[in-house]
């Protein structure tokens, strides 16, 4: 191996270094000043992102669709870099809003941020891993850190429960996925996706079985029906910033891994996975929406809505033969990053104010914090898919892909689901605007949180109003190596 390859790993290395450094710094920082460590975490994401940009530039310069390093186990291509950027965005924003969250709730602030960064590293690896072993490893890396983060508030029983459940469910699905991978390995005689693609001959039904079992793992990560049920419980129980992180980071990386595995590793003539995923997508979006409709708890509602959105994103894989599919998916990941993080941030503000996550308890927030409420309007509309927001253009993209691929029924179903979703998203706005506030004292929002909200808001609107740059990017990023 040549050390040159390491330069493709700069983002991962930066983040890892930051994490380790954080741990060390934590030891040397007085408990009351540990809040500063958060800034460190936020800061770490920036050079990492910069590095991603740099690598992208290099790829452009090389006119190459990407590079495979470490004997094809690791692939760095625009696709991966795009997802890494999204993941880093998630890490940074979440770290930002966590600044004022963890201090005061736990003494182990440093560890919290370190774990966040480790999870981030895991995400970066997932985006690039092109080898079953590495995939398993990186997914597990993310999962383990997430379990810990979900259960990080030791004194909060909900957090504990969330941690345990998340762990049990995750571990079980990991077991299934590992078994599935072993089968793939056996059928192909290799763990590298590129080899799997070429050698998955004569597999027949076994291939379906293997893919199915593997899907259990990915499905768990992106909370796809029927591997979704942990989502609401964990989202509700986990510390809100962590929930926000789980709803975008692992999801984005999970989709990246799924896309890479299927598109690179599983040739269509072996397994009709688009068909398979069309069904799953339909199921996922419907179940998610129907259950979201019943929720009164904001975090829980958002959990189900995130399931629904997983369903929309899966449309892209179902409509794989359309040129719009992958760009749509990638665009949606970014849009979802902004709008969903934003929604969770508002939830954070609201629960700080009212000490509850029940939607009716947020009545009249528009009177107490007009800007926050206004932001929530944007996020909710975006999640519903009303222009001119990022969410709308994302949906537009995905619907277009579905129509293009001739999946009118799926598109129609998605439409129906969007209408249903309007119902509960607007339900939130209804509480914020149409209902009288119990008290009129203006809310104070911590500056960090303000910045976080601001970024999410600007992102949602800007990406929605002028998608051209992003569209250009995703058009570039859809050239994923070997896909």
């Amino acid at each position: 191996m040549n050390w040159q390859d390491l330069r493709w790993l700069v983002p991962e290395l930066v983040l890892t270094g930051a994490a380790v450094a954080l741990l060390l710094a934590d030891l040397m920082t007085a408990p009351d000043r540990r809040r500063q460590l958060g800034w460190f975490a936020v800061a770490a994401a920036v050079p990492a992102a910069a590095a991603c940009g740099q690598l992208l530039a290099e790829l452009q310069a090389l006119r190459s669709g990407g590079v495979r390093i470490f004997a094809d186990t690791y692939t760095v291509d625009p696709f991966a870099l795009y997802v890494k950027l999204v993941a880093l965005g998630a890490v940074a924003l979440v770290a930002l809003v966590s600044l004022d969250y963890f201090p005061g709730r736990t003494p182990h602030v440093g560890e919290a941020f370190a774990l966040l960064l480790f999870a981030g590293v895991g995400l970066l690896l997932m985006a690039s891993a092109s080898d079953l072993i590495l995939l398993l490893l990186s997914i597990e890396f993310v999962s383990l850190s997430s379990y810990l983060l979900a259960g990080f508030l030791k004194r909060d029983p909900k957090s504990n429960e969330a941690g345990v459940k998340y762990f049990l469910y995750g571990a079980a699905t990991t077991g299934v996925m590992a078994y599935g991978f072993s089968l793939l390995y056996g059928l192909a005689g290799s763990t590298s996706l590129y080899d799997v693609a070429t050698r998955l001959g004569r597999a027949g039904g076994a291939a379906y079985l293997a893919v199915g079992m593997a899907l259990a793992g990915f499905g768990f990560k992106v909370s796809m029906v029927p591997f979704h049920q942990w989502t609401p419980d964990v989202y509700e129980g986990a510390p809100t910033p962590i929930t926000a992180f789980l709803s975008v980071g692992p999801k984005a990386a999970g989709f990246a891994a799924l896309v890479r595995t299927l598109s690179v590793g599983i040739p269509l003539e072996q397994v009709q996975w688009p068909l398979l995923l069309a069904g799953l997508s339909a199921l996922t979006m419907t179940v998610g929406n129907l259950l979201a409709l019943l929720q009164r708890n904001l975090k829980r509602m958002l959990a189900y809505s995130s399931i629904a959105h997983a369903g929309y994103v899966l449309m892209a894989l179902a409509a794989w033969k359309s040129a719009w599919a992958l760009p749509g998916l990638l665009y949606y990941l970014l849009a979802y990053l902004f709008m969903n993080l934003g929604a969770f941030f508002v939830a954070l503000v609201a629960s700080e104010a009212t000490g509850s996550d029940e939607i009716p308890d947020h009545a009249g927030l528009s009177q107490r914090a007009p800007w926050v409420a206004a932001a929530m309007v944007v996020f909710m509309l975006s999640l519903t898919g009303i222009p001119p927001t990022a969410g709308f253009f994302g949906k537009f993209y995905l619907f277009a892909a579905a129509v293009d691929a001739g999946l009118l029924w799926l598109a129609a179903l998605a439409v129906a689901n969007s209408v249903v979703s309007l119902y509960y998203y607007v339900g939130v706005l209804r509480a914020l605007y149409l209902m009288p506030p119990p008290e009129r004292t203006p809310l104070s929002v911590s500056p960090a949180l303000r910045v976080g909200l601001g970024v999410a808001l600007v992102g949602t609107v800007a990406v929605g109003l002028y998608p051209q740059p992003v569209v250009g990017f995703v058009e570039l990023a859809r050239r994923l190596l070997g896909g």
Partner: protein
Amino acid sequence: MARLAWLIPLFPLASYAVLIFRGRALGDRAPFVAIGAMALSALVAWGVFVEQVLGAESFVWRAAWAVGGQRVITVGYTVDHLSAITVAMITLVGGLIFVYSVGYMGGDPYTPRFFAFLSLFCAGMLTMVLANSFLLMLIGWEVIGLCSYLLIGFYFRRRSANMAQMKAFLTTRVGDTLMLIGIMALFWQFGTVDYHAVFEAVQRGAKEAAAVVRLGPWEVPLVTLTALLVFGGPIGKSGQFPLHVWLPDAMEGPTPVSALIHAATMVAAGVYLVGRAYPLFFYTPHHEALTVVAWVGTVTALLAALMAVAQDDIKRILAYSTISQLGFMMAGLGVLGYTAGLFHLLTHAFFKALLFLAAGSVIHAVHTNNIKEMGGLWRPMPVTFGTFLAGFLALAGVFPFSGFWSKDEILLEAYHHEPAVYTVLTAAAFLTALYMSRLVAYAFFGPYRGPAHPEPDPWLPEDYARAGLYRPHGYHGSAEPHESPPVMTVPLVVLALLAFGAGFVAVPGTGPEGGSWIHHFLKFKGFEAAGIQAPSFSWPLALRSLGVVLAGMAVAWVVYGLEWVRSDQVRAWAGPAYGFLRNRMYIDTLYGWVFVRGGLALAAGLWWFDRHVVDGLVNLVGWTTVLTSRLHRLVDTYVVDGLVNLVGWATRGLGLLLQPLQTGRAYNYILVAAAGLAVLVVVSLWRL
């Protein structure tokens, strides 16, 4: 002069605008604005008329009003003999009635509004007469309808008035709609609604075989159908059977209104239109459209006359007689008596207006409409009596009053072209003489049976009380009948003269080659082409009809004047027939049930349908599902009903089916996942 014809409707319109916006400021001076405007337009109108008499060419002016693709729809005005003589009549009668109204309405707080509406009416009427196309005609037509609506309900606090005005507008609207459809049909066939274009097209069309429309069993020539649809308008406006019901009730309005609108002009608009659109009717195969017109008119003439016999309200009697006379006109036009019909229109305008105004003067004096409460009025109010008498004789058609000539023309035509019509009309003429004599006998002869102290109307509004008036029966405190002020009587006299003399234009020899002037002036060009000769005046026929009239008077005189036979005996003897007539042959009652009640019922039914079926489909679905019970429990702050229930309840229901899976126990979840996986694989293998 004809180029100025557009001014004729404009003056009243201007006065309308002034009165509407500055009326209250003008106060008592308001009427004079209106009268002045009328005077001006009368000036122009008569100028135009005289010009036509002196043989000026007819004149048409058009301007684009609307466009559709390449087509242009125009508005404009036509000046020819017909329109000229009609506007002359309208402005004259109108002006007189305006003057009369000053006295009649004196002190009414809403006088400005009254004159405003009257002016608007005249504007509309004149527009309608001068119009060059069905479109503009329709506009004027509807405007006068509106004014009639507003003026019938002028005493807008009185429920009966409100009912009457609505009845009037809606009933006529039915006819108007038919006419509108007719106009659509015209546009469809000829791509225009301009009179001349249409008529030429019809004339041309008459030569080829007419296109036919299937209506159930019958095949109707398209042009006939169109003509009849258009005729729907006149049926409504001119109170022809079966749409005559509104006119008697319209008497709720102030008497001048009844005189101008519901006797002299508006109701005649229908007749005028038939005259104006004569080619459309004439050029139908075998003039069949005209035959229909004739019979509608005839039937109306008879029925109305019959009903008039059994009424006691002086204005109602006159109203029915108006209907009946309009029937005469229609019949006249229908039996190819183009000139006759229109001529009767003119004379009738004079004497009927006269009768109404005189009646108004009577009412003004005795504060009641009921002829049974009058009597012996010839002594206290000689002028009124004299003028009324003139009107009566004219209407009854006694030589040499104008009515005699015009009615005789009609009968003459009928006798030649449609004998059956002739017989019926003769009967109607007999009845006319009968009920008018009855009216005169009751009102002017015998002892005065009036109430000593008339009760103020229950609807009496506070501000009328403040004005110290009990309108419409202007109560001046004294119970004794007395003559009306000159401002009212002078117009009466003038009209009386007209009612007497207007007929002489029909005297043979007044026109070229032995014909009468009117025949020369108002003739339908189509007749010569079709070789139809207008029959010339014949004495035997005239005498016969005169005889009939006198007979009618005699009978009336026997019963009501000399009372050899007491009227209540007659009533007892007539029995059900009397009740039948008195109750307007129950036609109004029938309509009341079928259309009013029926319509409202239908409306209510549909409203229920809308709320419960169209909107509530979902709820129905909801109710029929077992879920509903649980749903009601779980309906949280988000639930809204209606369509949203469709989304809400149905989906919510499905959600509820799924929710139990969300137990909160990890191993349940994993089981679901495992099972799901199994199913997933099986399904996908299935597809292999």
